[in-house]
């Protein structure tokens, strides 16, 4: 069977490369013919065109992420109208059903932020910094909003580019100019999380750092006690399960009855050590 995956994250994004690895594993396991595609940048107009291109090939299943329902709905509805089974992953849990997708595999971003916020508040944080390395991506806005909600204290958003050197300096600058900041939540482990840890270390202050997603060095910081925890959404599952479900669907007409919450999953120091190796291999 032919299955196409169209996602908003690029193959060179450390996070999405794990999704892609999941996709490939599922392809190997099921024997399905699978391709992963994404726009050059976070570009919803281009992404809808990629979905159109995929629909034109009339695959036996289509996996999409839905970070902007308005922009992507015509293309997704066209796929559904063409009779192609669609599963959504990662972003779009709220709209997946209404657009005609069979189910969604992923985490609810706002909830994930909330959980992280609550945990950090419980650990004693009152003044938070939310480091956003992809300004304009709504999923990331939702995380900061959830963080603020769950945290209770004040939260400042720090928009940055995705250059680690710049992020390190900016986090450092934010810490230096506001003595009251005691918590940093980064929205991506390798781009924002690792430099945040470095900045906090250099500042010599006692500041908690947590991050969305995983990376081996960040997990190491968790193990070493330099970071509090990482929020894992097990994106390998998003790629793997979606393709697997669609392959089974194509072969036997099987399909689970509801959404699969692949996260959020807090990785604290007790669990971090076990996942470092898997993370280094691009599985977590």
């Amino acid at each position, binding site marked *: 069977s032919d299955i196409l995956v169209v996602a908003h994250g690029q193959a060179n994004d450390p996070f999405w490369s794990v999704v892609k690895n999941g996709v490939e594993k599922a392809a190997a396991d099921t024997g399905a013919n699978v391709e992963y595609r994404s726009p050059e*940048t976070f570009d919803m107009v281009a992404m809808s065109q990629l979905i159109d291109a995929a629909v034109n090939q009339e695959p036996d299943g289509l996996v999409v992420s839905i970070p902007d*329902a*308005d922009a992507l709905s015509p293309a997704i509805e066209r796929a559904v109208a063409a009779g192609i089974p669609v599963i959504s992953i990662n972003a779009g849990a709220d709209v997946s059903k209404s657009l005609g997708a069979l189910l969604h595999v992923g985490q609810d971003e706002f909830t994930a932020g909330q959980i992280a916020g609550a945990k950090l508040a419980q650990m004693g944080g009152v003044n938070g910094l939310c480091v956003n390395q992809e300004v304009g991506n709504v999923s990331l806005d939702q995380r900061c909003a959830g963080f603020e909600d769950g945290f209770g204290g004040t939260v400042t958003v720090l928009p940055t580019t995705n250059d680690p050197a710049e992020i390190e300096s900016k986090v450092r600058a934010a810490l230096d100019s506001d003595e009251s900041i005691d918590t940093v939540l980064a929205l991506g482990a390798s781009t924002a999380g690792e430099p945040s840890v470095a900045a906090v270390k250099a500042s010599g202050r006692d500041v908690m750092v947590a991050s969305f997603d995983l990376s081996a060095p960040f997990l190491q910081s968790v193990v070493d006690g330099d970071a509090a925890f990482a929020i894992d959404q097990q994106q390998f599952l998003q790629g793997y399960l979606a393709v697997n479900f669609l392959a089974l669907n194509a072969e036997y007409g099987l399909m689970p009855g509801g959404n699969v919450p692949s996260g959020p999953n807090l990785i604290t120091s007790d669990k971090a050590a076990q996942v470092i190796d898997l993370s280094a291999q691009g599985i977590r």
Partner: protein
Amino acid sequence: MSDSVQIQTDERIGAESFGAKLMKRPELGAVAGLVLVLVFFLITADRSMFTLAGVINFMTPAAQLGILAIGASLLMIGGEFDLSIGSMVAFSGLFFAAATVTMGLPLIVAIPLTFVFSAAVGAVNGAIVIRSGLPSFIVTLAFLFILRGLSLVGLKLATGGSTQLRGVRDVVETDWLAPVFSGDAFTGVFAMLARNGLIETFKSGAPKVPGLPVEILWFAALALVATYVLLRTPAGNWIFASGGDANAASNSGVPVKAVKISLFMLTACCAALVAIITVMDAGSTDARRGFQKEFEAIIASVIGGCLLTGGYGSAIGAFFGAIIFGMVVIGLTYTGIDQDWFQVFLGGMLLLAVLFNNAIRKRVTGER
């Protein structure tokens, strides 16, 4: 004065083939590259790429890019750059969405307003470049950041905190002007063709392609008008002259400043057109719209034969350049090439296409 045809018999002119004459024109230089890319995909890509639906599929992004590229190429021929085009797409998209959704204006008011507003921003760009004498690269770069930033701030203001403004589709759906700027043209014709089995349909019987996306019509129309202006009007001559050597042009009586400022306004309006079309199609806008489009527009223009240094190029070249770029970007997804290799292929195809262009042109024109 028709005796001037005598020169046709100059003994110092060798024979020149028709092909050589054609390839000498910057308008047609990009054709060789297009043919190469076409042949490549005909061989390697999934057959669905060259069905009607497939062609429309790669022509749609090509057209959106092409509208920007035509503006960029005229400006580049006129000797300047505009790096703020991409941000301008986001900014005028925000303006347009706010005008329709937040303020509830009808399209007949919102669209002209958006164009006037964008042209004004373009004029500011141009005026600063002209008055300061600074390179347009750095001035419009500043606007790249400023407009992008203002889009973010504006969106948050308009939505009360989100970076995405939704609901445009709902408010414009019933507007009589909507079909000119969004959706598909000739849907009746396509439906008829589908009923008669002349074009492909889904199992459901609906035509795979409901119509011709309006941006393709806009793209083609703009390319024609721009070519006409460049080659057949005084304004076109002024654009070439201003870009070729602003000093010499001004000394010969060309109103260089007015020409350049108009071109900045035109480029901004092209960005506004793309913004209007894509916002209406998507039904929403966000702070990242048009990201890096300035770059792609310049790429398409250069593939199409424009010189970065100004004074040389064509709108038709930019037209083909945009199609080449659009075809390569979308086409690679039809080939089954692993996404990991995507950028390697994109770069390789671009390089091959321009090298091939160049080799063919040198060969036919006998340049040393």
